[in-house]
């Protein structure tokens, strides 16, 4: 009798998804799918609001990367007004964005993924959590908190509050950075760097001790996409799109993000509310691509900051100089980006004009549409608004990072299930590995389906008729 295993919900990710693993009569895996089962409809209920509200409306999509939505929306709103923010405002936005990158990546690595890495996939689930990490390595837990705190403080200093700042306005920012805040943040830079270096050392030690497992864990070739500077360097706030093939061939370079509709289309599958974006010229699924930290490090020529560049060299040796394909290396890419983020914070804080008060470039026009594209912690984020003559929103299109990794997450789930799940001798650690494949991508499902679901993990074994024949429950 064929069976289906359900992992519902997937834990330690933001939002609500489930995994089904399909088994044949002998218990061998025949298929595995990642289902995103929540639906929010943000695009629809933004309609008829005034465009200037979008930065504060859309950031409510998420509690972990609100700054990304705030900034992408702000850029789209700037475009509607036909205005570029002042240099100081531009720097403040990037500074806040780097704070977001640091805090989001720190949470992902130190608190959501470290239980698997530090305690092991076979550790009992009741201990495989942040309490287990504190018990095993309290310093790591403390460092994770301190690093996230640093990122949050950067956001608060620029945006007025840690979550849901309301500082971006059309053409700039509505508050300046105080000198005392700049000086306080600069004092925190050395500790933030030290913590990140310690995290990298810990992670590389794990990779070294588990080389074969890591190299074969959800490792597969894909296309990659990310923003780069005109010089090809790592870029998160502005830049141009670069699409790269699995072998490193440039499929698109310095592509204007405003033309993204010619570059990207979205496919749908009947098992998920989350769409499947793909590179239009290659079609679906051949044109599926990955975004986020791993993709960004794969597509850029360099990071542009000294210490992150040195770490990038080490990263590039993971696959003998080729593109790094293993999903587990997302964690490393995340830490390199934290390092980059801290270095950018330092550079920006040391800029002579960072505390300046020339914050808004005025505009009195309303253009019919605006597009804002940035690199959010999880990947490229598109906000596209169409407005009427009075600025009322007529249509919204959001393409969110986690959605663009949808195909890769499904492939990762399938890959890990095939390699690690034995339906005849099913154990909880096997299924945890399947979940961990998704955690590598740190998806934010609340963002990408535009409800936060928190339920205990429940795994059901169903026969071909859908009858539950066994249940494993966690929590």
């Amino acid at each position, binding site marked *: 009798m064929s069976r289906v295993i359900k992992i519902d919900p997937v834990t330690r990710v*933001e939002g609500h998804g489930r995994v089904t693993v399909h088994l044949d009569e002998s218990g061998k895996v025949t298929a595995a799918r990642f289902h995103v089962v929540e639906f929010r409809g943000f695009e629809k209920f933004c309609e008829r609001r005034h465009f200037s509200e979008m930065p504060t409306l859309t950031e409510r999509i998420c*509690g972990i990367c609100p700054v990304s939505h705030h900034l992408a929306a702000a850029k789209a709103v700037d475009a509607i007004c036909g205005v570029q923010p002042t240099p100081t405002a531009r720097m403040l936005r990037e500074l806040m964005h780097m704070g977001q990158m640091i805090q989001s990546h720190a949470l992902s690595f130190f*608190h959501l993924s470290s239980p698997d890495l530090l305690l092991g996939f076979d550790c009992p689930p009741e201990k495989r959590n942040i*309490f287990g990490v504190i018990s095993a390595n309290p310093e790591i837990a403390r460092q994770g*908190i301190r690093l996230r*705190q640093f990122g*949050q403080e950067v956001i608060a200093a620029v945006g007025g509050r840690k979550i849901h700042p309301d500082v971006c306005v059309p053409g700039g920012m509505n508050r300046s950075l105080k000198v005392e805040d700049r000086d306080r943040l600069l004092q925190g830079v050395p500790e933030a760097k030290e913590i990140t270096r310690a995290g990298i050392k810990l992670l590389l030690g794990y990779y070294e001790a588990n080389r074969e497992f890591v190299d074969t864990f959800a490792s597969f070739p894909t296309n990659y996409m990310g923003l780069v500077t005109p010089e090809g360097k790592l870029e998160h706030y502005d830049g141009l799109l670069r699409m790269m093939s699995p072998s490193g061939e440039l499929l698109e370079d310095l592509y204007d993000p405003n033309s993204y509709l010619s570059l990207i289309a979205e496919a749908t599958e009947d098992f998920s509310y989350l769409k499947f974006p793909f590179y239009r010229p290659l079609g679906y699924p051949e044109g599926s691509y990955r975004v986020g930290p791993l993709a960004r490090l794969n597509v850029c020529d360099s990071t542009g900051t000294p210490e992150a560049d040195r770490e990038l060299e080490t990263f590039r040796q993971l696959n003998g100089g080729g593109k790094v394909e293993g999903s587990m290396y997302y964690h490393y890419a995340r830490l390199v980006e934290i390092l980059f983020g801290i270095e950018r914070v330092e550079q920006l804080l040391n800029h002579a004009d960072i505390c300046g008060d020339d914050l808004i470039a005025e505009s009195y026009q309303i253009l019919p549409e605006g597009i804002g594209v940035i690199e959010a912690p999880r990947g490229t984020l598109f906000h596209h608004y169409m407005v009427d003559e009075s600025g009322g929103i007529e249509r919204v299109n959001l393409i969110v990072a986690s959605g663009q990794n949808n195909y890769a997450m499904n492939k990762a789930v399938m890959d890990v299930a095939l390699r690690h799940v034995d339906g005849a001798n099913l154990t909880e650690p096997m299924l945890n590995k399947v979940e961990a494949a998704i955690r590598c991508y740190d998806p934010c499902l609340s963002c990408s389906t535009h409800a936060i679901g928190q339920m205990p993990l429940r795994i059901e074994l169903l026969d071909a008729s859908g009858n539950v024949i066994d249940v494993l429950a966690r929590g």
Partner: protein
Amino acid sequence: MGRRDDGSALVLAERLAERYAGVSDVVVQEYHQLGPELVDDLHHCRLAIFVDAHAHEDGADVTFGRLLPAQTGGLDTHHCPPDVLLGLTAAMHLNVPEAWLVGIRGYDWDFGDILSERTRQAMLEAEEKIVALLDDALGKGSTSSAGGQPATS
């Protein structure tokens, strides 16, 4: 403009901040959500009172209970339930404040900038209970009419 009764704790926090302005031992903080970084603040506290709106249709207008640190579980996402935050504080710093969880039932979740009358009354009731707790902790004795022993949750 917000989700009306969802903002009851925010309104209460503003009232408490005004009431205890200048009292250095009382710190009122507002958060959209609780995160693990708050352990560094919490372990310095003697008393922590968490206040939030609640939407339990079978719940009292004001729920008021002692909060104990979680011993297990953890972060499934980016925010911490208050008992997990207390548990993290206890695990990392070995000391944890006496903590209470106050819930104010909401009735109207539509867009608007004022509380429904029933939630406003509940918010005032919650304020009295919290003031009693705070004044007791400050050694002032309670001036409120809350009285009684809160139920342990």
